[in-house]
């Protein structure tokens, strides 16, 4: 029995780490900082990765698709476009979507409430010599045009004219501005009603960054006249990947975004077409058309509705969504398919399951799933609102032919389901949304198999042992009632609820939440929801001394077995703390500690993962021709089975890097070295005995060099090289070379062409040696 449990646990661990993510982030955020999501395991299982980011004082996140790396360098990368500007910090998290539809986030737990936080490099000096000329308080803003004008006449000879930038609402509009010897003038269409911010930044001839104060104004609603406008972008991407040992991989996709505005009318359309679209898998292509007029909006095509954590979110629906939107009342309704019918194929191979001697594989067979939802919301979005949602998901049995889901021996290979969720949510906000309280609750009804339709009234009465005044067959259009309802008798187990509080005051962001998801709570329209789990999550982010001292602390506690229907209760606790200190603009120090404990009530299982990391860096400006940021980081991670002592993995990693930006010519380079030393032991099982196996100490060394050179602000060749070698139980070496060129045709058109080559050698397993070649091209045109 113990062997079985151990095997199960080891399998669970293997499953849990099927996709393993880590991130490589800069110490502080600067424009065009590259954000890297490293896929330590399961790179090929990931369909796409997305970055979600926001300014620390914003509520909603903005998403950016990440660029997929090579199999030889399993990373996703993205840079936040420089037209987004952040005053103090940027909050972000990553989401990886696997091919089987699972969403894995980093951080793993409550990433929206507990995102990663990067402090914005704040080397700008506020200059009083940058004077705001327009807008002027004495004159209302013109009905047609907004004029932003800065004067720097008293320092006109001290700043570089080509370094002057004007930001409006966080976006860089410098290309539209007129820069003269002593003035910078930007003319824009009158913006929409509400508060708007703007500032000017520049670089002095001495190389110091200066900026104006942050300015803002409130645009009056009555002055809103928006001219006819069209904008959007078209991008095309293609990749060819060839491996000496595996099948080639090709991907080509195209994305078109088109926005049209005319006074109160808004139209947005998005089209994404990919060569990976396969009618026998869930759709990857995306089409959407959004039309908005005052107080009403409609979306046609693909959309991702959000009615709350327990009602509907993180799921793509293809259909129609409409919304009535008033100051104190909103009504949203949707109808569409959240899955499409995928016929299965019957195989009789030796690798498939055995059913009565016959072998079947259902090959991802799925029914089309209809999703219907409606949400009413009362109250002002910025102060208090209350919402009531109804969501129904039902698999369309007729979407597949009968032979597709029944094996010849009548074994059911896939079960159509019916699901209803009623949810409610409320939210209070104070002090310009700096203090927010909220709560959500939901109840589900779930039928795991509706193949046979509704049960008869007589059968139901027999089943429950009492008279039922309603005939289930009359209700079949609303919900299919039969013996497959889970649970048959509703109770606490099919409830979910959560409460949360967010406070952002005095540079201190505090979050606390409690969520409960019952063991029988089922919602087919929530992308990822762990059942039978209660979670307490607390986090606090403190920024002091003008962001020179940062402290992040978070604690998460999870318990399952909420209905006491499992043999054991599993508890999981995670504590994370990070201190970041930046005593000067050119130096930093950080320390982080993360510990995760998992155990169960039977005292048969207790594991612990702990990681601590310490790092420091310094920007050596004294190197005249190439100011260089040096950084060194050490981390220690321990992954151990405390009770069974079945494994004990330890790893020490040291990473050193030097990031140079050359002064006299536009060359950037980054050189890094990383060494990991492993000390592992694990239990090996046999039929009759088990023994602790001391594994050979292993080591991993990796050197990388990244360079880029910008010619005439237009052409930027990029070269990356990485050499890695590993010794110990698993010996291998690899060489990765990536070269490419970015070409900026004009302000609105970019092209990237890249070539990657990777070579893998396994000294003890020559037959596994392989090499890989990758060609990629990406063209983007904004209009």
């Amino acid at each position: 029995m113990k062997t079985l449990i151990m095997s199960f646990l080891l399998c669970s661990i293997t499953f849990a780490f099927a996709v393993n993510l880590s991130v490589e982030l800069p110490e502080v955020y600067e424009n065009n900082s590259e954000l890297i999501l490293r896929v330590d395991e399961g790179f090929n299982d990931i369909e796409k990765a997305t970055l979600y980011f926001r300014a620390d004082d914003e509520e909603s996140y903005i998403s950016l698709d990440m660029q997929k790396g090579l199999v030889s360098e399993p990373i996703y990368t993205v840079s936040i476009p420089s037209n987004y500007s952040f005053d103090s910090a940027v909050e972000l998290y990553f989401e990886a979507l696997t091919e089987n539809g699972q969403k894995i986030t980093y951080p793993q737990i409550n990433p929206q409430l507990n995102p990663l936080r990067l402090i914005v490099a704040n080397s700008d000096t506020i200059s009083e010599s940058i004077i705001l000329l327009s807008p002027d308080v004495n004159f209302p803003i013109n009905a047609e045009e907004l004029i932003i004008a800065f004067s720097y006449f008293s320092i006109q000879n001290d700043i570089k004219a080509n370094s002057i930038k004007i930001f409006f609402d966080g976006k860089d509009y410098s290309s539209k501005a007129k820069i003269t010897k002593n003035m910078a003038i930007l003319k824009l269409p009158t913006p929409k009603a509400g508060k708007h911010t703007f500032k000017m930044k520049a670089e002095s001839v001495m190389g110091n960054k200066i900026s104006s104060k942050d300015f803002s104004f409130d645009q009056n609603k009555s002055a809103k006249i928006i001219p006819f406008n069209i904008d959007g972008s078209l991008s095309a991407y293609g990749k060819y990947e060839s491996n000496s040992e595996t099948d080639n991989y090709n991907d080509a996709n195209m994305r078109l975004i088109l926005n049209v505005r005319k006074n109160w009318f808004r139209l947005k359309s998005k089209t994404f077409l990919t060569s990976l679209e396969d009618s026998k898998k869930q759709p990857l292509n995306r089409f959407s058309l959004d039309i908005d007029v005052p107080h009403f909006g409609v979306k046609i095509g693909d959309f991702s509705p959000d009615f709350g954590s327990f009602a509907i979110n993180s799921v793509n629906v293809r259909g129609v969504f409409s919304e009535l939107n008033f100051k104190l009342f909103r009504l949203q309704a949707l109808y569409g398919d959240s899955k499409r019918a995928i016929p299965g194929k019957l195989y009789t191979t030796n690798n498939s399951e055995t059913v009565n001697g016959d072998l079947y594989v259902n090959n991802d067979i799925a029914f089309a799933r209809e999703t219907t939802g409606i949400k009413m919301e009362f109250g002002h979005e910025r102060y208090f609102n209350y919402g009531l949602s109804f969501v129904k998901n039902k698999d369309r049995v007729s979407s597949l032919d009968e032979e597709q889901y029944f094996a010849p021996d009548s074994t059911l290979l896939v079960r159509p389901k019916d699901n209803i969720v009623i949810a409610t949510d409320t939210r209070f906000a104070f002090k310009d949304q700096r203090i927010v309280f909220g709560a959500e609750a939901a109840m589900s009804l779930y039928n795991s198999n509706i193949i046979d339709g509704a049960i008869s009234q007589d059968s139901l009465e027999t089943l429950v042992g009492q008279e039922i005044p309603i005939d289930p067959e009359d209700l079949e259009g609303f919900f299919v009632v039969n013996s497959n309802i889970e649970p048959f008798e509703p109770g606490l187990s099919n409830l979910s609820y959560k409460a949360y509080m967010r406070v952002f005051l005095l540079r201190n962001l505090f979050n606390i939440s409690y969520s409960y998801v019952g063991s029988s709570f089922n919602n087919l329209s929530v992308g990822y929801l762990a059942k039978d789990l209660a979670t307490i999550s607390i986090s606090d982010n403190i920024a002091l001394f003008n962001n020179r001292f940062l402290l992040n602390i978070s604690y998460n506690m999870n318990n399952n077995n909420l209905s006491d229907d499992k043999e054991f209760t599993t508890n999981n606790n995670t504590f994370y703390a990070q201190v970041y200190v930046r005593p000067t603009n050119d130096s930093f120090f950080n320390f982080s500690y993360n510990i995760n404990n998992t155990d169960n009530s039977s005292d048969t299982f207790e594991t612990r993962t702990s990681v601590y990391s310490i790092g420091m860096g310094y920007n050596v400006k004294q190197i005249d021709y190439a100011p260089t940021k040096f950084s060194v980081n050490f981390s220690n991670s321990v992954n151990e089975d405390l009770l069974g002592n079945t494994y004990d993995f330890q790893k020490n990693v040291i990473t050193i890097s030097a990031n140079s930006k050359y002064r006299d010519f536009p060359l950037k380079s980054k050189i890094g070295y990383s060494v990991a030393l492993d000390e592992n032991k694990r239990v090996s099982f046999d039929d009759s005995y088990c023994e602790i196996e001391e594994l050979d100490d292993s080591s991993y060394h990796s050197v990388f060099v990244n360079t880029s050179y910008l010619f005439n602000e237009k052409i930027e060749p990029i070269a990356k090289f990485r050499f890695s070698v590993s010794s110990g139980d698993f010996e291998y070496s690899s060489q990765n070379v990536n070269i490419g060129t970015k070409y900026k045709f004009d302000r609105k058109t970019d092209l990237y062409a890249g070539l990657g080559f990777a070579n893998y050698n396994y000294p003890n397993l020559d037959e596994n040696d392989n090499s890989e070649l990758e060609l990629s091209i990406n063209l983007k045109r904004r209009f």
Partner: protein
Amino acid sequence: MKKILLSLIVLLLFCINLSASVAITLKAVGDVSLIREENVSKAENGTELENNDQLETKKNSYAAVKFVDGSSVIKVFPNSVLTINAEEGEDKKLNKKTNLKVGELWAKVTKKTGGFVIDTPTTVVSVKGTSFNVDVDENGITVVNTFEGSVEMKNKKDGKSAIIGAGKHGRSNGSGDIEVLDGNTTQEEKNVDPEVKILEIELENSEGNSKIIKIEFE
């Protein structure tokens, strides 16, 4: 030779300085002309103004000007002619000296931000930080209304001067005593810059040609 070179450099720098912008039109509503070196163009919102640029506002038109040091704004009312001038002083402050040939203006000046002088055909109006109004008629008769602080009026012919305090107005025809009387002849908050809304009506004929009618209203 060295002196000549130095003189040339100084002259060059002076010329460069002359061509630098000294002010900007925050607003140019209606028929407002910009006269620069005898070239006449329509002044627009956000137009940079250089030394000796002249703004001429016609009927039902007005302009608003702000100097590059951000210290002072001027509203130029209809049927006025204003010439802009400003130079950087030794104290690095911008000394503003504008000429109001005819018409009316309102100005708001921040204290200790360089000199601010309005030159009219008959009078010189000097300000150290205040809000005031200057009206010049066709005969050069200048009326100054002071709303805050104080303004000095000085006749060009005989050099007589008078201080016009807050809530008073002064009148001069260029010679003799300057009349200083209690009360203002005009209000500071004149509704010269109402919020203008625009109604656009687009017309399209059967051939697809379109024209837009713009109606500006307050």
